[in-house]
């Protein structure tokens, strides 16, 4: 269960963040010690903090992840397996990959207490949002020791095939 501040960013925002890191451009927020959540929420209805806000497929962010970890990101939240390069970077920079259940955006929206667009508003659903979450359910999928939940459980439950 996660409580605290996380920042949403997915495909388009990752591309811009890494471009900023590589080109020496300005980052919209200090990455040091932060948690990134791969999510592009639906628009909030009037009176709602946020719309539906579940995780998107992490593999699409694989190529952008090692530089962000090098820049200080300590945890990333998404769904599905990661590449070897990402798992190695997680070990190298002592960061974790957390998996949230995909497709439960309405339920996860209830865990979001505050939400604010803080960068790239032109990206709409893909903008960077600062979220304050309480009791957000996620499990450790890849840790600082190179353990991969997805690999371990698949071996456990495979039969015949």
């Amino acid at each position, binding site marked *: 269960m996660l409580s605290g501040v996380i920042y949403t960013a997915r495909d*388009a925002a990752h591309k811009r963040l890494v471009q900023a890191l590589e080109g020496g451009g300005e980052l919209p927020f200090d990455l040091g010690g932060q948690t990134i959540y791969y*999510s*592009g*929420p*639906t*628009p*909030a*209805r009037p009176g*709602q903090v946020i*719309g*539906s*806000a*579940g995780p*998107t*497929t992490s*593999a699409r962010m694989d190529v952008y992840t090692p530089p962000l970890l090098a820049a200080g990101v300590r945890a990333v939240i998404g*769904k*599905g*397996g990661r590449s070897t390069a990402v798992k190695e970077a997680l070990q190298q920079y002592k960061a974790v990959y957390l*998996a949230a*259940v*995909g*497709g*439960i*955006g*309405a*339920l996860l*929206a*209830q865990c979001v207490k505050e939400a604010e667009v803080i960068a790239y508003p032109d*990206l*709409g*659903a*893909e903008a960077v949002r600062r979220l304050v979450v309480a009791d957000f*359910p996620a*499990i450790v999928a890849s840790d600082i020791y190179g353990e991969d*939940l*997805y690999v*371990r*459980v*698949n*071996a*456990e*439950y*495979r*039969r*015949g*095939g």
Partner: protein
Amino acid sequence: MREIKAADITRTVANLFQEANFVLGRDVLTALKAAEKSEESPLGREALGQIIKNAGVALKAQLPLCQDCGSAVVFLEVGQDAHVTGGDLYEAVTRGVRQGYAQGYLRKSMVGRPFSARENTGDNTPPVIHADIVPGNHLKITVMPKGGGAENMSRLAMLKPADGRGGIIDLVLRTVAEAGGNPCPPLIIGLGVGATSDQAMLLAKRALLRQLGAPSTDAEVAELEEEILTRVNGLGVGPLGFGGSTTALAVHAEVRPTHIASLPVAVNLQCHSARHKEAVL
């Protein structure tokens, strides 16, 4: 000749897309509840429990089940004696998508210039429309908000006739195993076999509209569906790839005659948030 007004088409499409995004189909919910009971993995059961709970929250709060409100796929069955008045049919559908995605606070997920600028079109258009002309004077509209995750893990293979039944099974198993948790299992697997490449992919997507778990009316195809389902569930991918015995809820196969040189096999994956609604005008 029966007249069907473009404005009625627009309003219907708008309502159907909202309903599809907020209300999970009863057949899907029933299958998920049964899966929660039979699932071997504790983590898998927990994930299924959250999925079921999510359906309740979405319905009550009028929140989309999933934040990915999908590409707007629309199937039209146009009776050949129906006459659309007051506007262009496809334009009426497009207006309906625009209105529905705005009124329902649904996510706008379409981008233009897909290999360069990738700029959001702002209103979730253009829709993907498939139309069939059929006997009758009605217009049947089926909407399927199709999420990108499962769609991305879909596959087409132009097999050799010699690859045969075994080749079809191997393709599906490889597709599901390689996709892992990415398409958000438990899946509904749409399979299109035969015809040409384009028709095979369309058959696979249409197959997702079938009542969940209803077998093919062709005994030989039904046997193939059942064998694939059992073997897919033996892969151990499990709910959301967390490991378990429920990787797919159903396999629906649509098979057509094909060229003497060909065995086209299309696999279209549907995630557990299997959303489609229909109406007849």
